Structures are given as structure tokens and as C-alpha cells.
């Protein structure tokens, strides 16, 4: 009989542990090396409970806030890691490749890769797909003396990304929906700055060769 409470405890703990593992920030353990090289590090972590709390402040009667509330109520977490470096070359391409390597699994697809020759600013956006649904997103924004990683966890439509643009360090984007599986994401910066080049790999070319 004494085993029943223990079994009940295990049954209660296991789903919680599984949920905790599922909502683990993608970049956990990946950024320690960069942090050692950075002159300043800023981490913002909003897990599900924090997002749920923040969502309460959004007014459902307001059209824009209602949309944002709908998006954030489904999210499992938003994590932002930002690194500032004293001078160019303090972080290497190898450091970045180690981060990118974690996004090479079959579930991950790089949708956007914007490169600016003029100011050295690059933005890469990766989506995590499970079945037909997008279940996560990672933005890697690099400049010669700064790096920013944004990880949004939870079901998110590429069109929702446009609504989140300009917040949480996510670049402003324009999304056009062209058919069932042909979402395209365009950075407005491309239109403004002709020096920038952009790759838009689709589902047929998920990884992109220039990673």
C-alpha cells in the first residue's frame, strides 16, 4: 500500500519534468563560450508562467492587443540573449557555427538569411516544424561587435512573426502568404538597403548551403 503514494508522486513528477524539458531554452549551454568573450551580456527569459502573467495586461477589446494576446497565450517561452563585444573579431565564425550546428536537425528550417555588406549586419531566422505546424523559432542577428539570439517557443505562424516584429529584438518583417506551403518572409530592410542580399530557402531547400 505504501507504494501507491510513491507511484502517485512519480506520475505527478514525470509529466512536469517532461514539460520542463520540452520548454527548455534552445540555447541553454550554447552561449557560455560567447559570454566569456563578451564585454556585456543581457539575458531576458520569459517562460510560460511569465508570459501568461504578461498576457493579462493585454486588453482583449483592443484589436491589436487581442491579436498579440492570442499569440502569446499559446507560447511556451521567449528567450533573448544579447552579447556586446569590445572590438571586432572578439567572436569568431566558428563560435557562430557551433550555435548554428544545433539548428541543423531535420525539424529546423532556415527561412530567412539577410546579409548586409554595408554594415556587416546579418539576420537568420530558423523555424522548427513538427508535422505541418511551426512549433518554434530562432532568430540570430549578428553585427561586428554584437550578437543577439531570440528563441520563441510554442506554436507560431510565420504571419504571427510579422505581428511580433519590432518587439523582443525581432526585426520588422513583411510576410506574404502565397499558397498552402509557400510562406515567404521578407525583411523590409532589403527594400531600403540594396546592399543587402537575402536567401529564402523553401521546404525543398531547407538548410541552405551557405551555413
Amino acid at each position: 500500500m505504501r507504494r501507491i503514494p510513491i507511484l502517485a508522486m512519480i506520475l505527478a513528477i514525470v509529466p512536469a519534468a517532461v514539460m520542463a524539458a520540452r520548454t527548455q531554452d534552445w540555447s541553454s549551454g550554447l552561449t557560455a563560450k560567447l559570454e566569456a568573450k563578451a564585454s556585456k551580456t543581457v539575458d531576458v527569459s520569459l517562460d510560460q508562467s511569465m508570459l501568461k502573467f504578461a498576457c493579462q495586461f493585454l486588453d482583449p477589446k483592443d484589436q491589436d492587443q487581442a491579436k498579440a494576446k492570442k499569440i502569446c497565450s499559446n507560447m511556451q517561452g521567449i528567450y533573448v540573449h544579447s552579447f556586446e563585444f569590445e572590438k571586432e573579431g572578439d567572436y569568431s565564425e566558428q563560435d557562430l557555427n557551433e550555435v548554428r550546428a544545433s539548428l541543423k536537425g531535420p525539424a529546423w528550417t532556415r527561412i530567412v538569411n539577410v546579409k548586409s555588406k554595408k554594415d556587416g549586419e546579418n539576420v537568420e531566422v530558423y523555424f522548427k516544424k513538427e508535422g505541418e505546424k511551426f512549433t518554434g523559432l530562432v532568430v540570430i542577428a549578428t553585427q561586428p561587435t554584437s550578437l543577439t539570439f531570440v528563441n520563441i517557443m510554442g506554436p507560431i505562424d510565420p504571419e504571427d512573426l510579422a505581428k511580433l516584429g519590432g518587439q523582443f529584438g525581432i526585426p520588422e518583417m513583411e510576410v506574404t502568404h502565397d499558397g498552402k506551403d509557400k510562406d515567404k518572409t521578407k525583411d523590409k530592410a532589403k527594400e531600403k538597403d540594396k546592399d543587402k542580399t537575402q536567401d529564402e530557402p523553401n521546404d525543398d531547400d531547407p538548410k541552405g548551403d551557405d551555413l
Partner: protein
Amino acid sequence: MSRRGIEILLVIALAVPCFAGDREFKSVVSAIEANYNTKHVRVPLLGFATFCLHAAGTPGTSGLKIAVFDHLNDSADSTPYDFERKVTASLGGNWRPVVRVRSHGNGPFTLIFANADENKMKMMIVEMQSHQATVVQVTLKESDIRKWIHDPGNLESKDKDDE
């Protein structure tokens, strides 16, 4: 059970959340004191100042607690990572690290933890900078924050209307 016994139980039950809030704040203060082998500075009239803030009805906040440390010992036997782990461990599982700002080496750093439930959020802010540290705990009430966000200049009149 006698009426007196029930009254005592009620008082204890009502006091427990207050002690819990105090305990978390004190545990962070103790972690810093132990890590740097120091004691927090007694700020003159701090109690009176917090009472005035409470009486003035600072919008959306309550339960303000402040501890200030001066002349922190440089020879503390731990890295900032170790110290962060000690502070996190002293707070317990309900507290989530929300913001962390760190500078290289032993430069200034800030930790902000939050503990949110359905209608309020407690925040613990630990800031360390060149031999000084400050710990602040504050409770944000969701209803007051919402009022303040939607109409920052009219909170007081709304409160009166609500009454």
C-alpha cells in the same frame, strides 16, 4: 477548540504569507552576507520611508523591501556564476530569473527574479556594482498595473470611483 485557539490559528494563517515573503528576501540578503562576509548597511529612516511610500499608495506596488551593502569584500571565494547560483538557490523554485545583465570579469551585474501568480507578481532585484550591492523586493498587483498602463494619469480618481 476554544475561540481563543481559533483566533490564534487565524492570526498564524494570515501571518504565514508575510513571513514567506520576508523569508525569501532575507535568504537573498543572507546569501550575500555569507558570500562576502559582510552585513547589510542600516539605512537611517528606511522603515519610515517605506511606510510613507505605503501610505502614499504607490500605484501597483506593495511590500517594498530594500537592503544595501557597502564595502563588499574583494576576496570573496566565488565567481559571479557561483554567486548567481547561490542567490537562485536561496530563492527556491517559484522564482524565475527574468533578466540578467552581466559585464565582463567582476564588473557590475543585475539579476531580476519574478514570482508570478494569478493576480500579483513579486520581483526581486539584485544589483552589484564596484563593492556595493542593493537588493530590492517589491510586489506588483496585476489590477493596479493594468489600470496604470491604460491610464497612467488617472489611477487615483479610478480608485476613488471604485470605492
